């Protein structure tokens, strides 16, 4: 019976702490917001902690409450196209241009950028350190595996989930004439189909290379045991755009409030808020458009 009472105790403790957590989550609701909008965004903005820093400031300045749906870029844009959200914040420029051209967004602003990094095991088995371009580095990974395909010298993990980062990776491969579809199922090219955090954990466990945005990598690097191998070279910048959903397509969306958010993130107050998110003294995102595409 002692076992039972222990279990019951543990169950009670769990229930109680859940109630406490719920109670805390409820308390900010006490202040009635003027309006509420829904923002679809990528996991990177949520996981990096950016939204946690900037949205409370916006909510305080505007009285507009922002509900965040954090998914992949592909799904975020789909939610916008369907009018399921009022505004989207994503990072895949060609898709954003298509979204605007099809009339789903009312306006697009360059919000900020960070950069991608090719991360990998400290031993750098494909000798990528010091290579001058991102696609050159990917080509070197493919090249290293030509010598010893099985077991591979250098594994690469692809997000494989149509996210902005996945699309970026595919574009980098195609720059050097490699089609990942052809290398699928080869033991060194692993298509994970998961989010950035999961893929970084996988790369750490398998001691493989992958492409990551800097923000998520900084948040995970102490845990996953990977190094930044190639960074700040052409092809690795990662711009974010914000687009309110076009009320002409979806009249029920809260366009006015959404536009306020878009205008705020590019305002001096918004830019300062973006810069204020720092890890190890370095800002994770730089406001505005990137220096090179």
């Amino acid at each position, binding site marked *: 019976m002692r*076992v*039972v009472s222990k279990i019951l105790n543990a169950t009670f403790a769990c229930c109680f702490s859940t109630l406490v957590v719920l109670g805390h989550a409820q308390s900010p609701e006490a202040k009635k917001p003027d309006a509420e909008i829904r923002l679809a965004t990528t996991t990177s903005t949520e996981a990096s902690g950016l939204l946690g820093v900037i949205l409370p400031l916006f909510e305080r300045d505007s009285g507009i409450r922002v509900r965040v749906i954090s*998914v992949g870029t592909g*799904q975020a844009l789909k*939610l916008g196209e369907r009018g399921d959200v009022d505004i989207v914040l994503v990072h895949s420029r060609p898709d954003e241009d298509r979204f605007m051209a099809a009339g789903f967004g009312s306006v697009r602003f360059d919000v900020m950028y960070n950069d991608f990094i090719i991360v990998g095991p400290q031993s750098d088995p494909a000798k990528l350190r010091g290579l001058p371009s991102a696609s050159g580095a990917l080509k070197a990974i493919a090249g290293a595996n030509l010598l010893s395909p099985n077991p591979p010298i250098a594994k690469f993990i692809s997000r*494989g989930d149509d996210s902005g980062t996945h699309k970026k990776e595919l574009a980098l491969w195609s720059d050097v004439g490699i089609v990942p579809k052809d290398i699928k199922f080869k033991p060194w090219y692993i298509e994970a189909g998961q989010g950035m955090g999961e893929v970084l954990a996988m790369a*750490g466990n398998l001691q493989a290379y992958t492409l990551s945005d800097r923000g998520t990598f900084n948040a995970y690097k102490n845990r996953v045991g990977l190094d930044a191998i190639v960074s700040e070279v052409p092809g690795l910048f990662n711009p974010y755009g914000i687009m309110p959903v076009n009320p002409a397509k979806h009249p029920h969306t809260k366009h006015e409030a959404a536009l306020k958010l878009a205008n705020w993130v590019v305002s001096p107050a918004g830019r300062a808020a973006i810069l204020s998110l720092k890890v190890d003294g370095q800002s994770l995102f730089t406001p505005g458009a990137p220096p090179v595409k």
Partner: protein
Amino acid sequence: MNLTTATVEAFRLLFAFDPQLWGVIWVSLRVSLLALLIAAPLAIVLGFLLATVPFRGRRAAVIVLQSFLSFPTVVVGLVLYVLLARSGPLGSLGLLYTQEAMILGQAVIAFPVLAAFTLAAVQGADRIVRETALSLGASRSRAAFTTLFEVRFAVMAGLFNGFGRVISEVGCAMMVGGNIAGLTRNIPTAISLETAKGEFAQGIALGFVLIMLALGINASLNYFQGEGGMK
């Protein structure tokens, strides 16, 4: 792509034996059935013993077993992940992100279902069956088999239930399998991926495939189960 065209497309791929789709189905089937195969003998023995052998703390053991029925699969995945991760105690086995890890996880998930169903079945069985067998000179194990044979339909129901739980389970499979294309991607993790991509119709179409699959498996198991009507 709307729901109808996506579903039609999914079934077209199914009957055109699209290697990618069938690869995903194969992973789902292989992992779930092997997991049941591993979990079933032990779980049935445990369920039977819990029902027939009185011992101190049996009630507690039954409560624990039944609580494990609602154990979140993602927690099973998390524990296995921590054990199998490169820095974890079993990291050197290199099992993380393999089908073997998924089988292990699903066996753990199926175990309480199978054990609890067997327990309930044997508890509900007519005590006379076992006593008659014993009085007719059957050995204890022989009597156990007789009892289990009497309640085979309820034990089978446990197998169906366990199969249903593991074939549709996504949390553990995603965590220890990693949803790797062509290796550890099964139907539920593929659905999860399609959802993340915003390809809702494809996800639902895959869901139909899963239901068809479950229908096929249950129908064929049911064939072995026989009529099973009221006596």
